[in-house]
């Protein structure tokens, strides 16, 4: 099984960097590619999982190839195209390209060549080989909701916190955290961040054991505060949209001018901005041309959807202090080696087919059907839990 996680050193020696692209430029390309996928996907009505899967393919792809050899928006289209099929929300290649054309500046569209569809289709096979057919990817969203279901406390505040964490997950796709840590850990980190910022402290949770000191001890093991902070900081750094970015040389591939002149904010300023309703912070603060509005998270059970997941600007200064105090808070927790709840990799496979997993602490049970499950239509090898099946051409 190939490993899709990289350490800091490996992330400094990517094919692009070895190819002469600077570290900062590569990060900017990644961010632009990720946001483009989100924007394109949102316009086409694709779900958050499909978009996130596309973004993860994108990040993985550029651990093997240089941005100089593969123009990022073509790759981005291809990733979204493939993710659509894998997540069973297929979009026609032609339609993705049409949407891309609507988003991208004409100058840029040159990188799609004479025959954009052919360009994307050819890339599909390279993409498949590069990501080694590891098509199923899990995302922090799943874990965010799973963990939040266990939290006790003011439901409205909880909902607000979840909304904020959800936005952070959207934004985290523009960073490389998915190349560094498992989605479970990213979810923990971003809930932690949101809970600091929204002042919803998780004091008690369902399934709490005496050995649990922090709520995430129930779900993940071997997570240090340093890791959590690193994830949070990568996400927070996004809100620091730098002037440098806009001034960087635009080749190769050209950056659409609409994106180049994003407003210049410093970190404090962007944090002072209220979080837009149901929309990713970054998109609204830095996107020039279009505002992508990723869908809100599904409401938690027995908890009405919040209509305000944002920060209160009046409190932002205080909240900034909260961010800075994450570390001090962490060190206040007595550290002891705990019997960890290890990540059950098998459980992931069950979730792939099954409806959302039961909330912990119930053990994650395989969806074992009693005693046999229903028939599959002829020619379908797999049980398919009542999903409508697209007619597919047969193999030849």
């Amino acid at each position, binding site marked *: 099984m190939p490993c899709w996680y990289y350490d800091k050193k490996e992330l400094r020696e990517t094919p692009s960097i070895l190819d002469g692209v600077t570290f900062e430029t590569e990060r900017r390309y990644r961010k632009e590619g990720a946001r483009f996928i989100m924007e394109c996907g949102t316009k086409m009505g694709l779900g958050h999982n499909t978009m996130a899967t596309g973004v993860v393919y994108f990040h993985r792809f550029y651990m093997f190839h240089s941005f100089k050899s593969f123009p990022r928006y073509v790759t981005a289209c291809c990733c979204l195209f*493939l993710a659509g*099929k894998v997540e069973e929300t297929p979009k026609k290649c032609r339609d993705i390209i049409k949407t891309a054309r609507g988003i991208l500046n004409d100058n840029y569209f040159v990188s799609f060549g004479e025959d954009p569809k052919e360009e994307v289709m050819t890339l599909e096979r390279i993409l498949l*080989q590069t990501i080694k057919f590891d098509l199923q990817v899990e995302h922090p969203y799943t874990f965010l909701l799973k963990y939040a279901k266990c939290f006790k406390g003011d439901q409205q505040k909880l909902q607000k916190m979840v909304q904020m964490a959800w936005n952070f997950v959207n934004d985290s796709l523009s960073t490389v955290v998915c190349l560094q840590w498992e989605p479970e850990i990213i979810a923990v980190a971003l809930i932690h961040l949101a809970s600091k910022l929204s002042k919803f402290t998780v004091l008690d949770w369902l399934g709490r054991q005496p050995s649990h000191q922090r709520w995430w001890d129930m779900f993940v093991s071997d997570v240090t505060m340093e890791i959590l902070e690193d994830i949070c900081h990568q996400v927070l750094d996004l809100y620091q949209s730098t002037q440098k970015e806009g001034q960087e040389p635009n080749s190769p591939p050209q950056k659409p001018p609409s994106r180049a002149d994003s407003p210049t904010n410093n970190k404090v300023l962007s944090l002072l901005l209220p979080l837009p309703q149901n929309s990713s912070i970054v998109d609204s603060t830095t996107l020039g041309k279009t505002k992508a509005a990723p869908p809100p998270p599904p409401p938690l059970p027995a908890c009405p959807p919040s209509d305000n997941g944002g920060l209160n600007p009046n409190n932002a200064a205080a909240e900034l202090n909260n961010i800075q105090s994450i570390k001090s808070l962490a060190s206040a927790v007595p550290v002891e080696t705990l019997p960890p709840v290890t990540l059950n990799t098998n459980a992931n496979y069950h979730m792939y087919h099954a409806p959302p997993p039961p909330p912990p602490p119930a053990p994650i049970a395989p969806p074992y*059907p009693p005693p046999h499950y229903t028939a599959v239509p002829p020619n*379908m090898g797999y049980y398919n839990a009542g999903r409508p099946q697209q007619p597919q051409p047969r*193999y030849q």
Partner: protein
Amino acid sequence: MSPFKSASDGSPCNYENIHVIGTGAYGTVYKARDNTNGRIVAIKKVRIALTENGVPMSTLREISLLKQLNACDHSNIVKLFEVCQFLERDGKLMILLVFEYLEQDLSDYIENLPKSGVSRTTIQRFSRELLTGVDFLHSHRIIHRDLKPQNLLISSQGHLKIADFGLAKTYDSEMKLTSVVVTLWYRAPEVLLAQPYNSSVDIWSAACIMAELFMRKALFPGTSDKNQLDRIFELTGRPGVDQWPKTISVSREYFPMRHPKRPRDFCPTLCEYADDLLSQMLSYDIRLRPSALACLEHEYFQQEPL
């Protein structure tokens, strides 16, 4: 022999084929050597037509599932090392599924048995491993649908692993068009009668395979659809009027009257527990067949075989 070479991106898909192991309706399986590490592997070549929208969604879903199952590293499922692809000259996509190589399949194994046959301990172990693998597939909502000795591989340590699920399963419509004879011997009656079915078809097949281990020959070696059903009814009894599917044209009266028998009547060497387990697994009524997990909890597996 031409080595397999990968796509233009130069990824490490470097195999040299040694010889053909099997050619089925679906493609060809080769014994091959991984040139990067000398490891011997089995490569299944599958050709698919690219659609207007690239690699078909069903193919992607199935490969994705295969890879995920594989990540569970189940000891009774053949291990998939990697998946490669390249474009052929005719524009079709060749997909190579690279599996661990196992010396023989269960049909070879049975064929090569000494006169004394298989020990009861070995039969019990193979049966347990088969049902454990089936339980694993079923718990991931995969129905194999073509369990038979040729699709069960035996490792050099004598362990059984299930092969040939996933990708191959979507070929059925084409399978009927080819002249390759597909064995009916392990088919459940509801499949032969073109009725709706569920994961219990695998339980039926597993029972046929278990009986074959005892008998060293097939339990229901049918020669045609009708003959296959008739042989089955010889054990289960001819279904009653109320049990006969209403949606098919073939009449119940087309089959001779049969009274139910015991598996033991076909295979006298079965112990009492095995007889009981197999008679449940070979129920005509699919609702009466136990799940793989229930089979594993049967008394037959709870003690030393007699």
